[in-house]
Each structure stands twice: as C-alpha cells, then as structure tokens.
C-alpha cells in the first residue's frame, strides 16, 4: 500500500496548473454516528482541500457522505454524530478544536452554508429582510437601519426585484427560486470566505437551476468566494466547478480538475457515473446502470468499498483497502485497478 499524501502538503491547482492557496483543508476527517447499537461511519478518512476563489464540486449518490462532510465542517452535526478524527484547517485554526462560541462566530460570517430545500429552510414567522439583518447583528454591532440596508442591498445584488419592498415580505410569499436567492443573500451578507452549498439547485426547476448556478459563478468572481458545491448532478459540476471530488460510501475515491476528470476518469465509479449520463443528442437503447448497491453504513467491508459492484475487480480489491494516492499533479485516485475510460 502506498502511503497517502498528507493533505496539508497539497496545493490546489487550477486547470492551467497554477497553484491556489488552500483556504480550507480537511485532513483525514472521520465522522461517526452513534445509533442505538451500531456505529455508522458516515465520513471515512476524508482529505480534501479548497483553494481561495475555487469552486470544488463534491459528487456522489445519496448517502455517500457529502452532506455530512459539509455539516462536519460547519460543526452542525446532529447530537448522535461526532467528528471522531482528523482536523479541518481554516485560517490556521483547526475547526474541530474550536469552542462552541468560537465556531458560532465563524458560521455565517466566514463560512456559510446553504441547504437543499429552500421551501423549509427559512423561518416562516419573520420577514426575509429581518432574517438577513439578523446575520449582520449576530456578528457585528450595527444599528438596525444599517443592518437592514445591508440586507436590502444583498437581496438586490442577488437579483430580487424591488428589494426594498420585498424585504418586508415573508418567506411563503416567494417562489422556490427566489427563496434560494434569499438563502444565498443570508449566507453571503457578511462576505464569507467559503460557501458550502448542499444541493442548492436540486429542488428547483431546470431553468431556475441554471440561473442560480450562474449567480454563484458570478459571485465567486466578484467576491473572491470559494465554494464547495455538493451535488449528485455531474452536469452541474461541469457547468461551474474548477475541481471535482468524487465520493462513494463515505470516502473520497477520486479528485481532479474538471477537465481531467471528465476526459480521463480513472476510478470505475466515476466512469460509471459519467457513462450513466444520458446523451441528449444520440439515442441510446438502454441507460447505463451501475449494478448493485452501496454497502450499509454499519457493514462496510474491510476491503475496497466499491469492489462488489466493480467491473474491474481483482483479488486484491476484495482483500485490501486502497488508499487515496496522487497519480498526477491534478489527479488523486483510490483504486487498485484503474482502467482507462472509453465512453
């Protein structure tokens, strides 16, 4: 087994090979959930890095641990879950070692998160404007007027028409796409360095989806924002991400730039995902499917987690557990037997 490259030596590289300074580094982070009698390993030894001004797409199917990873970064885990190992370095501080109050000051201020369901993510009893202003009040001492002004400005910047009037409306008076913009306004009003976006467009219409994604890309340019974009939709990743991390069964199995991953995916799972995307132009007789199922969280094999479904499976795959290795400057892989990709 080849040793894993320590994540803190890693420098994110853009498509053209320039190095970006890492903003957030996850180093061997493991999150477990203590259920009644079992320990579920939801996030397993995840090492990732996000550079400044970079959009990292995290892809994988439901339950692969991508949301839990984001929640671990924000330290918003449910009571039964614990980040049992590893470190998350942000601004030279390990987020996992901060006190509750210190972490609170970071949330919404330097690291923000938007969630999947804009319908239910906002407090229905307070106006949209007051909820955004609240974020300002939580982190700075400002007058009510000042906070409200900033809220309105944010709404405006995010494309809400008549922002000053709409700020006095309640969440239920907005459509889904608008609500997601409000969520973004909430998240970005304090100009955070990092935005964690957990499936921000999954619950929205395709056309709205495109708008929101465009918005995020613009904001990245305008504000120098880094984004961790969590999605199960490869199309979204291709659209705006710089780099991709593919997760499966709680582990990172492949990372690389978008160009690299889409043209030369090495991990069988990534390849399967790409193959599963239907052609829009040419007709296919059947849609590609990856057979089998993700193993249960409490019954993870002591070997490669994907082996049961892998077409390239070897003896080693069902005996040993592969580690994440750097195979090229822009490409990490966790696989004993990668093959080249033919669509």
């Amino acid at each position, binding site marked *: 087994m080849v040793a894993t490259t320590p994540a803190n030596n890693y420098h994110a590289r853009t498509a053209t090979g320039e190095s970006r300074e890492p903003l957030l580094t996850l180093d061997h982070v493991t999150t477990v959930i203590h259920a009644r009698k079992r320990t579920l390993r939801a996030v397993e030894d995840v090492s990732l890095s996000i550079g400044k001004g970079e959009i990292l797409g995290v892809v994988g199917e439901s339950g692969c641990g991508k949301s839990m990873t984001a929640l671990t970064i924000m330290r*918003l885990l449910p009571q039964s879950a614990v980040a049992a190992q590893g470190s998350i370095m942000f601004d030279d501080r390990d987020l996992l070692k901060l006190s509750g109050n210190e972490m609170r000051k970071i949330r919404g201020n330097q690291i923000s998160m938007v*969630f999947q369901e804009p319908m239910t993510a906002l*407090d229905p009893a*307070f106006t949209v404007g007051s909820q955004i202003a609240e974020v300002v009040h*939580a982190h700075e001492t400002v007058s009510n007027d000042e906070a409200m002004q900033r809220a309105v400005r944010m709404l405006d910047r995010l494309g809400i028409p008549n922002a000053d009037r709409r700020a006095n409306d*309640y969440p*239920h*008076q*907005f459509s889904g796409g608008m609500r997601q913009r409000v969520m973004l306004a*909430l998240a970005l009003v304090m100009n955070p360095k990092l935005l964690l976006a957990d499936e921000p467009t999954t619950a929205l219409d395709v056309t709205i989806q495109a708008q929101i994604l465009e918005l995020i890309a613009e904001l990245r340019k305008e504000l120098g924002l880094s984004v961790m974009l969590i999605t199960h939709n490869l199309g979204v990743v291709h659209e705006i991400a710089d780099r991709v991390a593919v997760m499966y069964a709680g582990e990172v199995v492949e990372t690389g730039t978008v160009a690299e991953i889409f043209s030369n995916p090495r991990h069988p799972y990534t390849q399967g995902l790409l193959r599963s995307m239907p052609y829009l132009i040419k007709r296919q007789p059947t849609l590609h499917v990856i057979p089998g199922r993700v193993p249960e969280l409490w019954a993870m094999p002591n070997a490669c987690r994907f082996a049961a479904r892998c077409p390239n499976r070897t003896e080693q795959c069902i005996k040993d557990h592969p580690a994440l290795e750097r195979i090229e400057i822009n490409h990490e892989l966790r696989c004993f037997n990668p093959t080249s990709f033919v669509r």
Partner: protein
Amino acid sequence: MLTFIVHRAIYSVFLLFIASVVIFYGLRVAPGEVTDILTNPANRSFMVANLEEKLGLNKPLPLQYFIFMGNFLKGDPGLSLINGEPIMTMLGRATGYTLKLGLLAAILTYAIAIPLGVIAAWKRNTVFDYGASLLAVLGMGVPNFLLAIILIQEFAVKRHWFPVAGYDSWKHIILPAIVLSAEAIAINLRVVRASVLEELNRDYVRTLYAKGLQERKILWIHVLRNSLPPIIALAGVMLRTLLGYTLIVETIFRWPGLGYQLVNSVLKRDYTVAQTLAILLTLAVIFFNLLADIGQQWADPRVRQGSK
C-alpha cells in the same frame, strides 16, 4: 382578515340571542318559585299575588323576556330579588374580583408553563423533562377542589401563611389563583413542550445555526415564536374551561366574583341575578371564542397574508 372578524361577530351575536332565550326560559320554568323564599308561609297567597305584581312576574313570559332584554341592553337589568340591590352595582363589583383573579391565574399559567415547557423540550428526556412531565400529570389528575382543600389545609390552617377565605388583602388572592391555574399550567406545559419539540426538528432551525446566531436567541425568539399557534388555539379552549372552574374556586374560597354570585343566586332562586349573570357569562364565553379564533388567524402569517 377583516371580513373574517365581521362574519364572526355577526355569528356571535346570533348565538348570544339564542342562548339568552334558552337561559331565560329555562330559569323560569324551574320548579320552586322565588316567591316561596321571600314570603311568609302564613299570609302566602295574598303576599304572593302582590309580590308577583310588583316584580312583574305575572305577565306572559315572552313579554317578560322582551322587557328584561330591553332593560338589560340599556344597562339596567333590575334589582336582586333577594336583597333589592341593583344588579348592575353587584355585577360591577363582582366583575372586578373575577377579573383580578382571572388575570393573576392567566399570568401565573403562562409565566410558568412557557419557560418550563421550552426548557423541558430543549432538555428532552433528562431529569428536568421527566420532572416537568410529572408536574403536568399531577396538575391534570388532581381535581381542582381537592387541590384547593389540600392547599388550604397545608398553608392556611396548619401554617397560617394565607387566610382561609375572604377578599380583603392581596394574600387572599394567591391560593385561589394557584388552584385556578393548576390545570391550565399542566396542559399548557405539555402543549408548549410538544410544540417546541416539533419546531426544533424543522429545517429552518439548522439554517439559524448556520447563520451563526446564539443558541439562546434561536430557542427563545425563533423557535418559541413558531411554536405559538397551538398554544394560542389552546388558550381559547382553556379560557372557557377556566370560566367554569372559576365558579368552583370562587365558591370554595368565598371570593366574591361573578362565579360566586351565580352559584349563590341559583341556590337562592334569585332569578333576576341568575339570568343576568348566566347571559353575561355566556356572552363572555362567546366573546372568548371570537378572540381565540382571531388570535389563531393572526398567529399564522401564512393565513394572515394569504400565501402564494
């Protein structure tokens, strides 16, 4: 919202009318004439006729009803048949007492039930939570008159902390208020707890944490505010039930409020007072209904504004 209020108001007036007729006739049809109480058995027949004339009791019932209602609405429901005191003065005095008691009981109820309920939900399944639930079970299981007796025995008879009955000093109101609010506290405690528990599981709570708000603020401002609708709905029901309990509690403690007067007037067959009070209290109940309905509509901004 406005149309709603108007509809409800008209409706309530209609209900009140029906209630007043029922009460009026009901009381009159009762066996046992007030005249029996007021007259000397010896010269009964003569006195009875005279008395009936004087009190207007010999006119046909429907006529009596209209005369009564007319006077009632003008603000002069007449005199007590027993002691001749103008009913309005009696009522004025009694209302003051009942309001004081009711207000204190209401304050006690929410001042105790809301904080306890919120904390019980927040610290779910801890000792605190179980303790609060126990309190709730006790409050609901022990009938109010029993509680009253126990409290009187312990704190008034044995320890002389409070007077047994009466209405002169502020000390007189404490025990009755506690008894009156006991069940309300218990039920509200459970409703608050359940409502807060439900809200704590909602998505927006996670967003609130993600915004970096302090936990204190999240719990006591956002979650509590969203937990209110069932509590307000309950308030309407509780208000009416409490009105009923006032009758018993005031009687036990001889607190001269409306309830005490009603029970007394029924026992003594004081028609005019009884029917006035009965109608008044019915009016109060209907009015509380109205308030509760309106309150519930208000608490849910989705209903208030009309959602998209």
